[in-house]
């Protein structure tokens, strides 16, 4: 019974990890790939680590695994947000069929224009699409 629960947790975690890997190959856009990779891999890794904690049944191991899960759940969204924002401002294009671009129409480009004018060309080219 216990081995069955551990096997279900490990299998579900591996399933979501493989979904993240398939998504990072097949999705068309950097930002869609970021979303898929971050969320699916966080869930898959957390499920696998929960299965490992059930297998060892030790207080020290469970503490370590809780630390890993909490750290991943806290830092993966922060890293993905920083990476996506840096990629957007360095001019990585969106997919052609994207329907919303809230950052382009939110006035963030105006803040960059009155500093040194480095982002004006990108702002103009992005406003046309």
């Amino acid at each position: 019974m216990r081995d069955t629960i551990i096997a279900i947790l490990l299998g579900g975690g591996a399933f979501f990890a493989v979904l993240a890997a398939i998504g990072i190959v097949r999705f068309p856009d950097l930002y869609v790939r970021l979303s898929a990779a971050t969320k699916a891999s966080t869930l898959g890794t957390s499920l696998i680590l929960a299965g490992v904690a059930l297998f060892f049944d030790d207080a020290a191991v469970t503490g370590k695994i809780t630390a890993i899960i909490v750290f991943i759940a806290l830092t993966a969204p922060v890293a993905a947000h920083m990476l996506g924002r840096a990629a957007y401002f360095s001019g990585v294009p969106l997919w052609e069929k994207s329907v919303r671009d809230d950052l382009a129409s939110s006035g963030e480009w105006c803040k960059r224009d009155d500093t040194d004018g480095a982002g004006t060309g990108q702002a103009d080219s992005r406003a046309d699409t």
Partner: protein
Amino acid sequence: MTLDAFIHYVILPLLGGGIVLAFVRLVRGPSLPDRVVALDLMATLIIALSAAYAVATGQHAYLDAAIVLALITFLGTVAFAYYLHRRDGGA
């Protein structure tokens, strides 16, 4: 099927195939942020693989490697994001 055989014949090949797919994106990625995303996914999958390997071998020393890898991965991704932010002349 015992738990050891299940891990050896199902879980570890699935995670290894996932790492290979992420490496394909790392080779083919058209821009630098694509490659950084692929590296981040590869490191997360290696954390999961080392945890599953700790179950397969019965030694919990592999979880320490998983902790260290989680810390180093976050620092590396943040450093790459800061470098990208600096490279295009951002404030």
